[in-house]
C-alpha cells in the first residue's frame, strides 16, 4: 500500500485537525455526486476507497487504538459498495431500463440504436434524458446539454432529471467548486452566490 500520508497529502507531523480538513476537501473532490453519470465514475470510486483506507490508517496510527470511528460527516459509505440498482422484479423489462443497463456497460452505440427505434411521437422525457447521458459520456457536451434541458422541461418534477440538469448548469456557469472555467458574474441561480 502507498504511504497514507502521501495519499491524503499531509506531512507526518500534521495535527488531527489539519488531517481532517484535508480529508474533507478530498472527499468533496472525489465525491460520487461530482462524477455522477460520468464514465470516470469507477475511477473516482476507487480513488475514494484509497483515500478512505489511508485516512483510516492515519487515524488508527494517531490514536494507537483500534476503536476509532471514521468521521461520517462527509462520505456516505453506501456509495462505496457498488450497489446494483438494476435488480428488477421479475417480468417485463422496459426499453428504457434496457437502455440504462447498456449505458452502465458503456455500450453507447447499442443504447442509441434502441432509442433511435422509438418513433418521435412516442418519445417521453426519459428518452431525452437517456440520449443526454449517452451524449455526455461520448464527450458531445452541447448535445448532452440540449437533451437534458428538454427532458427537464418535459418533466420538471423528476428528481433525477433535475439533479443532472443542475449539475450541468453549475458546470456551465463556471462558478461551482472544482469546476475551473470562468464565471462571468451573471449569476446562474444555482450556485448560491
Amino acid at each position: 500500500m502507498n504511504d497514507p500520508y502521501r495519499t491524503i497529502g499531509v506531512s507526518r507531523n500534521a495535527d488531527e485537525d489539519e488531517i481532517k480538513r484535508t480529508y474533507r476537501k478530498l472527499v468533496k473532490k472525489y465525491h460520487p455526486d461530482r462524477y455522477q453519470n460520468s464514465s470516470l465514475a469507477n475511477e473516482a470510486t476507487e480513488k475514494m476507497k484509497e483515500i478512505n483506507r489511508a485516512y483510516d490508517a492515519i487515524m488508527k496510527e494517531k490514536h494507537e487504538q483500534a476503536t476509532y470511528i471514521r468521521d461520517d460527516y462527509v462520505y456516505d459509505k453506501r456509495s462505496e459498495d457498488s450497489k446494483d440498482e438494476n435488480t428488477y422484479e421479475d417480468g417485463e423489462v422496459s426499453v428504457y431500463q434496457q437502455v440504462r443497463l447498456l449505458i452502465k456497460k458503456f455500450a453507447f452505440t447499442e443504447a442509441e440504436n434502441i432509442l433511435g427505434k422509438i418513433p418521435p411521437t412516442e418519445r417521453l422525457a426519459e428518452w431525452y434524458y437517456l440520449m443526454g447521458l449517452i451524449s455526455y459520456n461520448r464527450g458531445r457536451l452541447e448535445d448532452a446539454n440540449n437533451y437534458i434541458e428538454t427532458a427537464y422541461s418535459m418533466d420538471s418534477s423528476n428528481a433525477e432529471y433535475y439533479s443532472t440538469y443542475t449539475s450541468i448548469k453549475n458546470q456551465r456557469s463556471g462558478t461551482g467548486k472544482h469546476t475551473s472555467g470562468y464565471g462571468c458574474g451573471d449569476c446562474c441561480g444555482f450556485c448560491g452566490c
Partner: protein
Amino acid sequence: MFGYLQVNRDELKIKDYRLYKSVYCGLCKQMGKDYGIGARMTLSYDCTVLALLYMSLNSESCTVVRKRCIVNPLKKCEFCNCEGEALRFAGAVSVIMSYNKIEDTIKDSKAWKKLAARAVKMFFGRNYRKAARAYPKAAALTERMMRKQTAAENDRSDIDTAAEPTAGLISELCTMLYPKGYNTHVAGIFGYYVGRWIYLMDAADDLEKDIKSGAFNPFKAHYNGNMNETMRYCNEVLNMTAAQITMAYDLLDVGSYKSILDNIIYDGIPERQRNCLFDKHNKRTAEARENGSI
C-alpha cells in the same frame, strides 16, 4: 497547437514559474538540437504543457542548468535538462502539428500568402520527415485528424462534431504519454476535453474575424448580432468542457510539477477564457468607439 494552455502567472509561485520557464527553454533547446534552429519557431506553450505532463506522469527527473539563450545571446537562461523522452516527444509533436497547420494554410489562402506558406512548408519538410520517423504514430494521427477536420468543416458541423477531430487527436497523444500496458482510460478522457477546449477556444477567439471573412466557425450559428451575448454563450460551452477537464485531471497520477499543472488547469484555463472572450473583445469595442468619436 495554438498556445491557449498556459500558466496563470499571477497565481504561480516564483520558484514554479522559474521551473516552468526552464522547461520551456529546455524544450526550445531540445528542438534546436533535434531539428535545427528553424524548428524552434514552432515552439508553443501547449507543447510545454505536453512535456510537463509527460515528465510528471513518468516521474522523469530533470536538472536545471544556466546557459546563454540561443535566440537572444545577451540573456542567460535556465534550461531544464531531461534524461527521458519528454522533451524529445513534445518537440516532435510541435514540429508535426506546425507542418500540418501550414498545409492547412496553403489550402485556405490565396496567391501570395499561398506562395509564402509553400516556401515555409518546404523549409520544414525535412524536419517534419525526421519527426515523423521518430514518432510515426503521432504523425499518422495528426494527418488523419487534419483530414477529418477538413471534412467536418466542409459539412458545416455543429459544435460537438467540429471539435471532435482535435479532441480525438489530443486524446490519443495523451494516452501515448504512458508506457505500454498502462491503463490510459483517464488520460484519454483528459486529452479529449483538453483538445476540445483548445479547439473551441480558438474558434471563439476567431469568431469576429470569421464572421467578417465568411470562414467556417462552429459558433457562428449561435451569433445573434450581439457579440457580448455570443461570447457569454461560448464561455458556457467552454466552462462545461473545463469542468470535464478538471474531473479527469483530478484522477490522473500527477507526480512532479503538480503545482504548475494545477495552476494551468485551475487558474490558467479561466484566465485564458476571461482574456480571450471578454477582455480582448471589450478592448476592441472601446477602441472602435474612440476612433468613431474622433
